[in-house]
């Protein structure tokens, strides 16, 4: 009996060692590209080009960060400002619309509810390949809303954040009905119950949605590129970074791109470090629903 446990103990210690070796290996592979980018942003262009195998900078320099502050065509402060207001507006819109729609689909009883919900859900599988941008732009210009981030934010007002709607709907369904009934007795209507009773209780799930919307908008590449093509001064940070890569001198400006990447990554990484549980709760709520 005793011997058995000892063998078992050795066996499980060996198994644990193998487990942790695999986990750590995967960890290293996950972190390497990011760590390399971060350290690379402190290398001079010369060093990047001549010693590609090296991970650590030999002569660390802040020159790249100074350079992106006033590089031609890459004004990092203006790009940051554009990214910030674009992201904030989108977060506000997404949170508000998801909260209302989620509440309606959880508590509302109205003809056509199932059909509307099915239509919205089907959007998950609508992939048009981008040509739908032409009619969208035609509609916007017929409303005299021209290019630029403003037009994109306007369109966001009419967006359907279906995954977030699912999250709120699930959350509201789990709230006791008695809350609504009590508020109704106090004279609240359907909308009043939402604003006075339900909305304040949605804080945790709305925080999750806010952080997911923040991440999505900050990282957005396709739509801001399309809408700032004619208004380059409105480019977001991601768009500016990618246009640096597409410009002619790309091969010689890796230092700028690495420093720019770090600046573009930091806000999202910081949000992830602080609000990591919100990211995860959004994800696991999705899995349960799935």
């Amino acid at each position, binding site marked *: 009996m005793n011997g058995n446990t000892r063998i078992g103990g050795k066996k499980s210690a060996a198994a*644990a060692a193998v487990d*942790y070796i*695999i986990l750590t290996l*995967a960890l290293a*592979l*996950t972190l390497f*590209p*990011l760590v390399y*980018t971060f350290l*690379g942003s402190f290398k001079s262009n010369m060093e990047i080009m*001549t010693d*590609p*195998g090296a991970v650590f900078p030999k002569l660390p320099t802040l020159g790249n960060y100074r350079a992106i502050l006033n590089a031609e065509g890459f004004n990092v402060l203006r790009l940051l400002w554009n990214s910030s207001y674009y992201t904030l507006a989108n977060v506000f819109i997404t949170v508000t619309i998801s909260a*209302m*729609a989620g509440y*309606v689909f959880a508590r*509302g*009883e*109205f003809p056509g509810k199932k059909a*509307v919900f099915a*239509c*919205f859900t089907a*959007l998950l*599988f*609508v*992939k*048009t*390949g*981008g*040509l*739908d*941008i032409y*009619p*969208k*732009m035609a*509609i916007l210009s017929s409303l005299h809303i021209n290019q630029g981030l403003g037009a994109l934010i306007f*369109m966001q007002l*009419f*967006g359907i954040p279906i995954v977030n709607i699912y999250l709120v709907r699930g959350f509201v369904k789990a709230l006791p009905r008695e809350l609504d009934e009590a508020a109704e007795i106090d004279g609240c209507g359907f*909308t009043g119950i*939402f604003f006075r009773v339900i909305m304040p209780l949605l804080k945790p799930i709305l925080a999750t949605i806010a952080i997911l919307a923040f991440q999505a908008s900050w*990282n957005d*590449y*396709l739509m801001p*590129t399309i809408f700032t093509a004619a208004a380059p001064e409105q480019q977001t940070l*991601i768009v500016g*970074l*990618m246009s640096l890569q*597409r410009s002619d001198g790309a091969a010689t400006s*890796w230092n700028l*791109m690495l420093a720019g990447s770090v600046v*573009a990554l930091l806000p*999202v*990484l910081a*949000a992830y470090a602080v609000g990591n549980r919100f990211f*995860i709760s959004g*994800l696991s709520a999705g*899995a*349960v629903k*799935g």
Partner: protein
Amino acid sequence: MKGVKLRMRSNPGAAAKRRRITLQCYLMLALPIIGYLVFTVYPVLWTFAWSLYSYNGVAVNARFVGWENFATMLTKDFTYWRMWGNTLLMAVMKMPVELSAAMILAVILSRRGKASGFFRSVYYLPSVISIAVVGLVFSNLFSYFGVFNGILMRLGVIEAEVDWFSSKALSLTALTLAGIWNTFGVNVMYLLAALTNVPAEVYESAALDGASGGAVFFRITLPMIAPVFRTVLLLSLIGTLSVNEIVLVLTNGAPGGQSFSVMSYLTRQFVPGFISSHNLPPLGYGCAMSAVTTVLFAVIAFVYSRVSGTMDENT
């Protein structure tokens, strides 16, 4: 339940209240419903309609050609289908590696409760950063004088630098590796959540019956997490087939437009801001490709849900 409804219907106050609630519901959904009609349904119908025309963005010059655009796609110009070939090839290379790696990591994490929070947070990290930046980071790693070539040379795997974007096979490999790095963590999260929901008693009774590790995994674990696994598979499939930004940034089709996925091909050919030439592209033809793409994705999702649904009934 029926009795209640009938009584409510005969009560005029209740009927008025139902109408009020219906009105409020639709008011609260007004923006998304308008958005659905104006910014989703109308654009899809628009692409379907123009797919029957020879059209380059100038309505006066448009000419009705019927099914000609589709006929060209099916009989003359196979570029679009080659891009589907690339996309499917990437899915075949990426999904088995990504899903089995995610499964192994999730199984390990589920039995190492203590440290698993930290590891899974790091594995998920690549999924929260911009896909465009992922493309940029990997185009640096894979560049001719990049660190991957440097490491491979130091290890003696290659003798001289490899140009990762000189052949379609190498480009697609680079895209696949970057894609796996980008999304395996999502799958770890989903699978880990599913695994921790499997009650411990199930494993205990299996151990009492003397089941081996492999038998426990294939006979017990896998069936127990099957519903989540199907969701993971569908999301991974749709995500991989609609891969776009990372291709635009990492290979941009190199060499010579050979390594595009379907979505990135359409983007580069037809979407303003990404079009390389100054002339307006043949939008009618693009709309035909777009229509085919929309239908194919809908069919994939539908067939998948039917197949996995019948699998569900059988088990």
